[in-house]
């Protein structure tokens, strides 16, 4: 600590300008006084003497100014000298310099690359006008807020014009279009007319749609994306007024959006066509199938908005007694926060990890520099003797650190820009606000943070030898005949550094092991279905005319039938909406005859499927029966539930035969109780890491016209084929069969294996990165402990020689060296474990099936590190044996 304060003093001394100014004042006054006195002594009057002295002196300010010029010149000259000297001195030890710059380039490059991802995803403001006032509207329950919005809620919020300047509803999906270049299945945005002004989307041609065109029953219109216009119409100016067939009906083209409008912050796949969402302003529908965002009025804080919306929620509950549970309310969240909320934690954790790796790397280089310093003791002493002041020497060493770290930083920036596009392709799709085409942006924040990182690194690099220089005797005689104290001091300093490195490495390793455990746990999970040999394909039936259940049933039957005919397909099925782990539908249910608090008993995932769905996916039927072709709209309504729901709601009785009311107030059409006919195994359908919730399945055929119309408008039909062999091999045959059988294009063909691994991709990415950082830390710590052991052995050569001569066995000598190393490692591990216990909780949301403070994880991370540390120390320890007494004495 003493050293630290002394260093602070030295650094402060470098800039003691005020003091210098005061001194100059005093000195000049003294000069004038003496001149005046002499003139007085020569016979002038006092006043006369003062006057002439001042006149001879010239302007006081001119003198001061000239002196300051010299000071500035001195500073600049000094910095130039320092830089020149630093470069010269670094060139004299090229190996050290190369290693240091390379390590720093990798460390700073990784930090820069990672920070630019953090910047792009978390920090960059949304590219929309007044983005800081953009909020998402949420339905907030005890476990958090959900962004899904129903027409009834939207209409309730739209009345709050005192809160919001504008409020827009939007939903992203895919549509079938038939343009000038033929049919295509493209991504789409269904948005309310407020969307364009809210998000600052302007047109280069024509106009966006207006409120009057955004109503159910209005003539269909469409606004094109710039890219779609270029591709499909070759950028023709006469596109306005043309008709584009979307989902089977003609839409009049109103305009083309500016190319600068980028919806990547709202959806990963940029919409090609924009069509009205068409929410009836008086709609009381509770089907939540879109999102809503608004711009708060200037001066309205999110807290004020929340307070007001809580009142709105109460009114809403009165108007729709069955829509919301008592504990649920409405609220807002800054839009950016909502977009990044899932990734914020993991990005910050990983950024912390990569910064720690850089810190370890800097400590390591500082350690190497310390060794170099010991070799330079003579040089430093000589410079001190020649009049170089201590601050000057410290400054020089810091300059060396700066030169090193900025050289490393420059190399790192180059490395980063090479790696960044590749890295971003790796993470694209796992992170919001980053698409495959969009590389993270390097803006002033990235440059600033890189600079700060470089400066911080150079302080760590330069500080260590600087501390050493201050404490060192700087005595010429100590140059070539170094005292034992010097050696011990260097050794102690280096040992402390290695302990720090080890401790940091333990923390990172614990994080890595925790994530690897999560990775492994996710892989051993049984998702509840057989993921092998399954192919899923999608068809959108969202088009006019698809309003009768019979029509949809005919298409689905035809599609399933065609699939079944293909050789290699063992079972074929379809689901309206989704497959597990991709998307889910939710519906609340009521168990008739049971006491009820709130509007319903629970909300569960909900599937409408064809009879062979369970067999195709390999979901086991535990009790009762699956659906058959005999379950139709005119037969008794039936439902199959999962095991979790059966256990939870019928713990002591048999649910089979019991009634269940599904989707009351949520589904249009006739909703009457269904009879539970079967129980199937649990399926992890939202994410692998979450146990199945209550789940209900109904036969697709038992949806009435209104229900079918609603479902196919919001979701596609997903076809599922279980195959005898590799499912991808049937991709083309099945696509063709379905397109012929249904008359609709097929898209998004994925195997179930792909869907399962995509569902863990983000977690896997965390694991890969964290393991990489952990390994880097391990390697650096190993290098550190190797270095300090080698140094200790070298310094104790004479002692070892004598011990050997006195009869110590090789094993004893080795133990002697290793004992020191064990102490060092032990202390490092201990500190590291304490650190890990303190910080590992930040990982908890990223973990699955392992506690952040799992003792086995701590033990295994420590064991890995201890093993590597011992191995790294073993090599130099062996060198202790080679010192022969004669050689040592000769050296003396």
């Amino acid at each position, binding site marked *: 600590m003493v050293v630290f304060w002394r260093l602070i003093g030295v650094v402060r001394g470098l800039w003691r300008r005020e003091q210098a100014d005061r001194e100059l004042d005093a000195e000049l006054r*003294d*000069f004038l006084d003496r001149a005046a006195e*002499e003139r007085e002594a020569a016979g002038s009057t006092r006043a006369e003497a003062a006057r002439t002295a001042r006149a001879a*002196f*010239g302007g006081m300010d001119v003198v001061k100014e*000239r002196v300051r010029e*010299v000071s500035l010149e*001195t500073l600049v000259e000094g910095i130039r000298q320092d830089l020149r000297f630093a470069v010269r001195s670094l060139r004299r030890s090229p190996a050290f310099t190369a290693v240091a710059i390379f390590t720093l380039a990798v460390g700073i490059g990784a930090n820069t690359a990672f920070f630019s991802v953090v910047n792009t995803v978390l920090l960059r403001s949304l590219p929309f006008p007044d983005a800081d006032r953009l909020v998402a509207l949420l339905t907030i329950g005890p476990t958090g807020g959900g962004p899904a919005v129903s027409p009834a809620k939207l209409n309730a919020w739209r009345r709050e014009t005192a809160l919001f300047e504008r409020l827009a509803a939007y939903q992203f999906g895919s549509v079938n279009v038939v343009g000038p270049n033929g049919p295509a299945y493209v991504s789409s945005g269904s948005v309310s007319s407020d969307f364009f002004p809210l998000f600052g989307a302007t047109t280069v041609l024509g106009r966006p749609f207006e409120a009057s065109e955004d109503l159910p029953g209005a003539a269909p219109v469409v606004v094109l994306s710039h890219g779609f216009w270029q591709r499909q119409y070759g950028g023709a100016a006469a596109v306005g007024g043309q008709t584009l067939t979307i989902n089977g009906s003609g839409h009049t083209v109103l305009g083309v959006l500016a190319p600068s409008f980028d919806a990547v912050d709202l959806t990963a796949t940029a919409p090609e066509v924009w069509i009205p969402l068409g929410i009836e302003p008086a709609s009381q529908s509770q089907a939540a199938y879109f999102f809503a965002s608004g711009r708060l009025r200037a001066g309205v804080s999110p807290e004020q908005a929340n307070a007001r919306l809580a009142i709105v929620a109460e009114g809403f509950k009165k108007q729709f007694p069955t829509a919301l549970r008592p504990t649920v309310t409405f609220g807002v969240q800054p839009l950016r926060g909502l977009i990044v909320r899932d990734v914020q934690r993991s990005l910050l954790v990983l950024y912390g990890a990569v910064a720690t790796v850089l810190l370890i790397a800097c400590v390591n280089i500082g350690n190497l520099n310390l060794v170099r310093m010991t070799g330079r003791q003579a040089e430093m002493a000589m410079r001190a003797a*020649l009049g170089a002041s201590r601050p000057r020497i410290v400054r020089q060493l810091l300059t060396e650190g700066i030169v090193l770290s900025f050289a490393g930083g420059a190399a790192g920036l180059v490395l980063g820009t090479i790696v960044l596009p590749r890295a971003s392709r790796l993470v694209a799709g796992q992170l919001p606000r980053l698409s495959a085409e969009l590389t993270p942006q390097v803006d002033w924040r990235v440059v600033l943070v890189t600079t700060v990182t470089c400066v911080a690194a150079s302080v760590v690099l330069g500080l260590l030898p600087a501390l050493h220089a201050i404490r060192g005797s700087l005595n010429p005689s100590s140059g070539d005949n170094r005292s034992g104290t010097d050696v011990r001091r260097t050794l102690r300093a280096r040992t402390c550094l290695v302990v720090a490195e080890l401790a940091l490495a333990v923390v990172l390793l614990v994080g890595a092991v925790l994530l690897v455990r999560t990775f492994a746990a996710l892989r051993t999970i049984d998702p509840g279905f057989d993921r092998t040999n399954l192919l899923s394909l999608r068809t959108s039936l969202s088009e006019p005319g698809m309003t009768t259940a019979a029509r949809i049933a005919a298409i689905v039957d035809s599609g399933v039938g065609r699939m079944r005919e293909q050789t290699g397909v063992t079972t074929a099925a379809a689901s309206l909406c989704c497959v597990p782990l991709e998307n889910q539908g939710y519906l609340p249910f009521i168990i008739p005859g049971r006491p009820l608090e709130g509007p319903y008993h629970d909300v569960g995932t909900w599937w409408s499927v064809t009879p062979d769905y369970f067999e195709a996916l390999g979901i086991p039927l535990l009790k009762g029966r699956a659906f058959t072709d005999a379950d139709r709209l005119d037969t008794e309504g039936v439902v199959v539930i999962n095991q979790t729901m059966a256990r939870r709601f019928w713990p002591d009785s048999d649910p089979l035969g019991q009634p269940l009311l599904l989707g009351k107030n949520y589904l249009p059409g006739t909703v009457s109780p269904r009879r539970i006919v079967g129980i199937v195994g649990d399926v992890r359908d939202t994410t692998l890491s979450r146990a199945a919730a209550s789940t209900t399945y109904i036969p697709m055929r038992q949806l009435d016209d209104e229900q079918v119309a609603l479902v196919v408008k919001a979701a596609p039909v997903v076809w599922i084929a279980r195959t005898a062999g590799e499912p991808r091999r049937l991709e083309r045959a099945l696509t063709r069969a379905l397109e012929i059988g249904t008359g609709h294009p097929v898209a998004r063909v994925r195997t179930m294996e792909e869907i399962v691994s995509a569902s863990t991709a983000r977690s896997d990415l965390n694991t890969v990165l964290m393991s990489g950082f952990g390994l880097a830390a391990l390697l650096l710590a190993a290098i550190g402990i190797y270095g300090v052991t080698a140094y200790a052995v070298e310094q104790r050569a004479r002692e070892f020689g004598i011990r050997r001569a006195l009869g110590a066995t090789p094993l004893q000598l080795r133990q002697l060296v290793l004992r020191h190393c064990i102490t060092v490692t032990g202390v490092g591990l201990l500190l590291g474990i304490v650190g890990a216990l303190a910080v590992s909780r930040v990982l908890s949301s990223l973990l699955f099936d392992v506690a952040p403070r799992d003792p086995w994880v701590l033990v295994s991370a420590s064991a890995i590190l201890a093993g590597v540390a011992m191995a790294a120390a073993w090599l130099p320890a062996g060198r202790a044996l080679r010192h022969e007494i004669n050689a040592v004495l000769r050296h003396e």
Partner: protein
Amino acid sequence: MADDTSSWLVQGTLDMLILKTLALEPMHGYGIATRIDQMSQGVFKVNAGSLFPAFRRLERDHLIRSDWRVTENNRNAKYYALTAQGRATLREETRAWEVQTAAIARILKTTS
């Protein structure tokens, strides 16, 4: 500043004169100025605007060093003194100066 003869003094020359003055004994700023004036018998009148920057430059180059001392009548004054490096430089510069002036003198004699 009519009597600022130092303005035509080559910068290195003023530095050398300061070093020469300090070679005798440590001295404060005013003392140095008077001493140069006396030694040159009034030819060089050094003004403060040149003198103080020169002190800073010499200090920067480690040719002189300074410290505050209490003077005869209990006043504080900043004293300058020669460093070992300054002494060596003065020796070298003096030798170089002598060689140069001798050469210039010879040239002037020959041409006139």
